[in-house]
């Protein structure tokens, strides 16, 4: 298994998940505001656990994955950001790309944290996987995430329907 790096930004630490992050992880994905554009339904504890495990598998199989995000000042877990390849059944296909994603607890919204975290992850990706494409999949009504993606240099390449929602596929 490749070692998962730790990245530091001005206000955040992106680091490997720890088993004791799990209660905070449950809390993150039990929030309807967080899941509004991620499946649409708050996760049960059991579903959060499956997602938590999956994040490690991504690193194991691909050498990239999601990071836990910790606020430097408080040490608090505030969310996750990183890359995955979910083999989504979607047209156009984004398989073989580093699909970029992020999710933060609502109190951490509106402070530029997502942009700060994903920018650091993207800088790491550029070093470690220079030849892979970076994509994003965002619900067309998720204005906040579309704004973050645009700020990070992602540009729309397609719109399609995925699991019943209209989504924008972006690439950088």
């Amino acid at each position, binding site marked *: *298994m490749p070692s998962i790096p730790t990245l530091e930004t001005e206000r955040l630490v992106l680091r490997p998940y720890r*088993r004791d992050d799990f209660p905070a992880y449950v809390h993150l994905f039990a929030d309807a505001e967080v899941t509004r554009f991620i499946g649409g339904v708050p996760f049960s*504890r*059991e579903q959060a656990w499956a997602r938590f495990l*999956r994040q*490690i*598998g991504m690193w*194991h*199989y691909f050498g990239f994955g999601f990071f836990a995000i910790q606020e430097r000042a408080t040490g608090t877990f505030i969310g996750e950001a990183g890359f995955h390849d*979910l083999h989504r059944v979607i047209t156009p296909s984004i398989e073989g790309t580093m699909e970029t994603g992020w999710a933060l607890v609502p109190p951490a919204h509106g402070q530029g944290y997502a942009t700060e975290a994903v920018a650091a992850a993207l800088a790491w990706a550029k070093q470690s996987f220079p030849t892979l494409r970076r994509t994003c999949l965002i619900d067309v009504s998720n204005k906040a995430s579309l704004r973050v993606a645009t700020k990070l240099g992602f540009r729309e390449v397609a719109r399609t329907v995925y699991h019943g929602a209209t989504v924008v596929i972006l690439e950088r």
Partner: protein
Amino acid sequence: MHAMPEMTTDRLILRPHRGDDYQAFCDLWADPDVVRHISGKPFTAEECWIRLMNRPGMWHFMGFGFLAIEERVTGRFVGEAGFHEVRRDMTPSLIGTLETGWVLLPEFHGKGYAFEAMDAMIAWADVHFASRDMTAIISPGNEPSFKLAAKLGFSEFARTDYHGEVVVLRRSAARKAT
């Protein structure tokens, strides 16, 4: 991360899952015969992928997990077996136990492969997690699995509702002394 073990039995190799198991893993979990007593619904390709991604996570956080089963003679992917902690929303809770499971492609049923694989996994667990009870949940009607569980030393201790009625079985840690 805890190292994922590899084991060899008379006829099988138990090893960590690999990304290129995906197709066979989909064949396994999309098979109506395989899922008849496990949720009842074939898994979609996306669900299979996520399940394959989960596997190393269990080893990473818990130090135990599932292994892929390969037939030694042919090198073919047979199925998977091992232990997990699913954190299921059910009573009684199985958290803190080694929940045991095995799933094989139908063409490999009836050869004693599941027993052979689980026997090796249990021997491994008896060394590495000696003080933990093992549990298993099996749907009523899944006679082959009940038979195998009994042979492995499990016995029923509860019935409950988990997406339908299930029987909860246990193999107590104390048993190992015998």
